[in-house]
């Protein structure tokens, strides 16, 4: 691909139109949450006009969710899942299998509101009256990969925790029934962990990068109809 300086310019009406810089509702909510949960809140973040992220400590996970539900009215359970922050040792599955794999950066870099561990749990709950949603994160300890279950706070978390258990290998203490949801019972490994290889890509690398290369004979007008 020829380097084209112009092609990297983004036209974004969202940025030029008056994007809200301060979000009074969400800021007030974060202050109120900090007041209720106290030291349990490790970090929080507000993107004005978009969303709230709150990270709570591992020990207070279940209690925090319970308080958010009871005190702040976050009574709608949206989803629960985990994020593995380890960069994949296999890259994007585009390596040539006949060559040795290239060196890759393996430093763990967490996302919004930070984090100290490889695995993080993420739950989204919403207030059904005000329709204000909140993303709550918690670190999952590196040695045990175990955290308290919230299935007795939100009954809907039951299946989501089962999914996180089989896909990420996270244990949930107090969960009534951690059977596999999708995988066969004798399956070994945790498919959604980054160090679990995608076998189809190990056998034959995906020529994904080819798809976005410019067509031969392409000219400047191509940029107008970029896909």
């Amino acid at each position, binding site marked *: 691909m020829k380097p084209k300086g112009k*092609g990297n*310019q983004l036209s*974004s*009406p969202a940025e030029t139109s008056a994007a809200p810089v301060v979000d009074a509702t969400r800021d007030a909510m974060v202050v109120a949450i900090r007041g209720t949960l106290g030291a349990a809140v490790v970090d929080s973040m507000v993107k004005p006009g978009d969303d709230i992220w709150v990270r709570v400590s591992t020990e207070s996970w279940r209690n925090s969710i319970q308080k958010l539900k009871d005190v702040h009215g976050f009574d709608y359970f949206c989803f629960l899942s985990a994020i593995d922050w380890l960069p994949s040792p296999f890259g994007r599955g585009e390596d040539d299998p006949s060559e040795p794999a290239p060196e890759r950066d393996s430093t763990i870099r967490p*996302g919004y509101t930070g984090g100290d561990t490889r695995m993080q749990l993420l739950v989204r709950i919403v207030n059904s009256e005000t329709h204000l949603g909140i993303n709550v994160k918690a670190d999952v300890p590196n040695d045990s990969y175990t955290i308290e279950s919230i299935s007795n706070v939100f*009954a809907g978390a039951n299946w989501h925790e089962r999914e996180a258990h089989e896909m990420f290998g996270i244990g949930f203490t107090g969960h009534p029934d951690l059977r596999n949801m999708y995988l066969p019972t004798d399956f070994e490994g945790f498919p959604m962990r980054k160090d679990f290889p995608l076998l189809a*890509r190990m056998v034959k690398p995906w020529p994904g990068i080819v798809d*976005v290369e410019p067509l031969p004979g392409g000219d400047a007008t191509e940029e107008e*109809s970029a896909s």
Partner: protein
Amino acid sequence: MTILNDPVSAKLGNRQQLSYIASQAADARLNVELETEGMTLNIGPQHPATHGTLRIIARLDGEQVVWAEPSCGYMHRGYEKLTEVRTFPQVTTLVNRIDWLGSFANEVPFILAAEKLMGVEAPPRAQWIRTILFELSRIANVSLFLGDLGVQLGAITPVFLAFRDREYVLNLIESATGGRFHPNFDRIGGLKDDLPAGWIDETKVVMKKLRNFCDEIETLLFGNEIFQSRTRGIGVIPRDVALQYGLSGANLRASGVDWDLRRDQDIALAYNKVDFKVWTHPDGDSFARCWIRLQETREATLIVDKLLDGIPSGPVMAKVPKIIKVPEGEAWVSTENPLGEMGYYVVSRGDLGPFRVKIRSASFNNISITPWLLRGVYVPDIITILASLYFILGDIDR
């Protein structure tokens, strides 16, 4: 035996639910007196009522279900893992196949999440066309539900009407996008193409046909006494249980929660440009869920009509680079899909493809209530309840 730990079932206030529970309890007492031997009934994975390959294991006491648990995973395709080795524009091909009856609607929230991270907004014309196609896929999806509902309850005719009239909508989607089931039409920054000539007039004619179809189904099916007696008061979900399990879409609104993501969130689609009614029902039973879907299909045809009148002119594609790199960040976008709330939590690392995508599909939450809901119901009601919850297997297993 698993008993879900739900603190809410103790405070059920619904009179209908109480009378149903009372009749169930009476039968249970009879079962104890007659000493019925327990048996395990296996429904599926190849049963017409399972919309694919869902398997229900039910332990019965006489005619009543003592314990029931769906067994998923017969169609798990691992889309969350696959997205990690695709580029952003390639992901729409995957997510098309989650809810295969309303494919276009699956693409929209993912594209919106990517656009949110990039700070790009589609031009107004693209937003309007997106909204129209979104509603058309809702109509295609839910009209099939309305026909299929009759089949599952023993009425054959509605499904023929549904397949006949859904064809018109699929033809429209095909003529605009090129794909009947998997359009793959949405792009980061807009749409692949503009609408073909004459499409708007044709759509208006089809919307009229679809409204006639809704009237037909309403009199044929919803006015039918057998249909009513099989659905009224069956599978009642109270409001707080529905919220706690994260039910969404018509299932939530049938429990009296007035919440529609088309109206209640600020999103880059054209819903705030038109007036429409959000239907709710206080009963929370199977009839209410089906009735809401019928009303929503009719409402969707009206939304399409109103949107068609006001499509702004202009380009359908914003200027985006040819090689799309999404800046680092996290974004959550959900929309009101035909089955309920469908959302994507996208984590990007400034790379060509996403670092992690959590796909929150509506059916997974909607069906997770079944162990609670099926406890104590009679065997024929299992089919009614599953039909009225309305799930698509691809949407559960992903």
